[in-house]
């Protein structure tokens, strides 16, 4: 038997979560369908005038992405918690923060990434220009990881609680507002001619900041919840 390196363990965790999701495809699909539905609800609510919809577009897509991500958060740890694998992860001889990061990456690949890839199609419903669509995808690719990361902390804190997805959303949504502001702002900057780069840089900064801190904080939250 050979020793497994840290990177190896990270890869194992990501692979495992992806494999599990493949065998339960419904979870990933429901998140996507929810996303599409929420975006489509807005025109139904506010009317079909293209001018107004165009202005609302980036905000609507972003809010829907936020909500769809929130929906999928409880799943991050709950299944492992229920069958005892989470305990085993906490007893691993490698840093729990790295394992948590692996789970976050897998979660993002199953929620944020598909959302970002499908968003252009939805953007077309709102008559967004091609440049705007590109920036939308880029912004979502930068912003959704942060949602997964902050969400991981929330999911870890609410492990096993009855409130479920609603409680996590209550805790996590306020913290995600900066991502929303700069993410939607980046897309609007395209149409208003202002600087896209500054918005995207902020998103990038958030992502780096979250990357450094959230795995550790989430690992602490797991320890608190599992006591």
């Amino acid at each position, binding site marked *: 038997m050979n020793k497994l390196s840290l990177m190896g363990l990270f890869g194992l965790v990501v692979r495992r979560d992806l494999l599990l999701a493949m065998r339960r495809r419904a979870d990933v699909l429901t998140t996507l369908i929810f996303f599409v539905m929420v975006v489509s609800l807005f025109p139904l609510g506010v009317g079909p005038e293209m001018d107004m919809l165009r202005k609302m577009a980036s905000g609507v897509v972003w809010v829907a992405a936020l909500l769809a991500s929130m929906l999928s958060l409880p799943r991050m740890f709950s299944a492992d918690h229920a069958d005892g694998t989470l305990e085993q992860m906490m007893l691993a001889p490698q840093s729990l923060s790295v394992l948590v990061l692996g789970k976050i990456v897998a979660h993002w690949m199953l929620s944020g990434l598909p959302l970002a890839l499908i968003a252009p199609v939805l953007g077309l419903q709102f008559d967004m220009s091609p440049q705007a669509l590109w920036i939308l995808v880029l912004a979502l690719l930068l912003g959704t990881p942060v949602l997964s990361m902050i969400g991981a902390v929330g999911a870890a804190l609410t492990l096993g609680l009855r409130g479920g997805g609603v*409680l996590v959303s209550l*805790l996590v949504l306020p913290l995600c507002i900066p991502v929303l*502001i700069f993410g939607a702002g980046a897309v609007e900057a395209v149409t208003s001619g202002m600087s896209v780069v500054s918005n995207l840089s902020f998103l990038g900064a958030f992502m780096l900041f979250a990357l450094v801190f959230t795995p550790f904080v989430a690992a602490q939250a797991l320890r*608190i919840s599992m006591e």
Partner: protein
Amino acid sequence: MAINWFKYSAPTTFYGLAGKLIPFFAWPAAIFFAIGLYIGFFVAPTDATQSEAYRIIFLHVPASILSMFIYLIMAGYAALGLIFKTRLSSMMAQALAPTGALFAFISLWSGALWGKPMWGAWWVWDARLTSELILLFLYLGYIALHASIEDVRRADRASALLAIVGSVNVPIIYFSVKWWNTLHQGATIKMTGTSMHIAMQQAMFAVLAACWLYVIAVTLARVRSIILEREANTQWVNDLPEVKQIDGGRS
């Protein structure tokens, strides 16, 4: 087990001390409040550009300032409880939260009351008001998390972590909202001019002092009831005169 260096850091002794201290804060609070509101509503001159309605800022500004400070203090106590495992610190954090939320709420209401005469709308998306709203959400999240966890120790530690994460985020959120506000050229609620009449300053400080004293008094009272709740099964609680009275009356 940690050594109690300070005699009053144990809930048992703090209970008594808190009880004795409350009047020393409650009465001055009431007095300062009366003074502040009197000056604010009757003595301070009418503002040139805004009508009488501006006087609500004497409540709005202290409430805003305090709502933010209380969050930081609450997070501080929570962090102490998390790191040093002192029970009283966690209880203080739990005691501060509702008051902080209340002040955030008052700040929002008073902001709205101010905005209505000025802008004609009950709510404007001013950067500070919006940040205040988010702060209220953070408070509510903290309270909700603590209430959702049955095991008190886990509840204290989980909400402490949340409060710490929230504190780090508050500057980020505030900055983002400011950016958002300037981007969209939203409404800005400004203070009157650059120089405030001396009476206005006096009123402001008086109400601010009153609010601080009120917070201390109310928190002390609340922490006493939290202590009672948590230690309900211990001997010393059941020996307290006020508890004996209730039990005596019942049986």
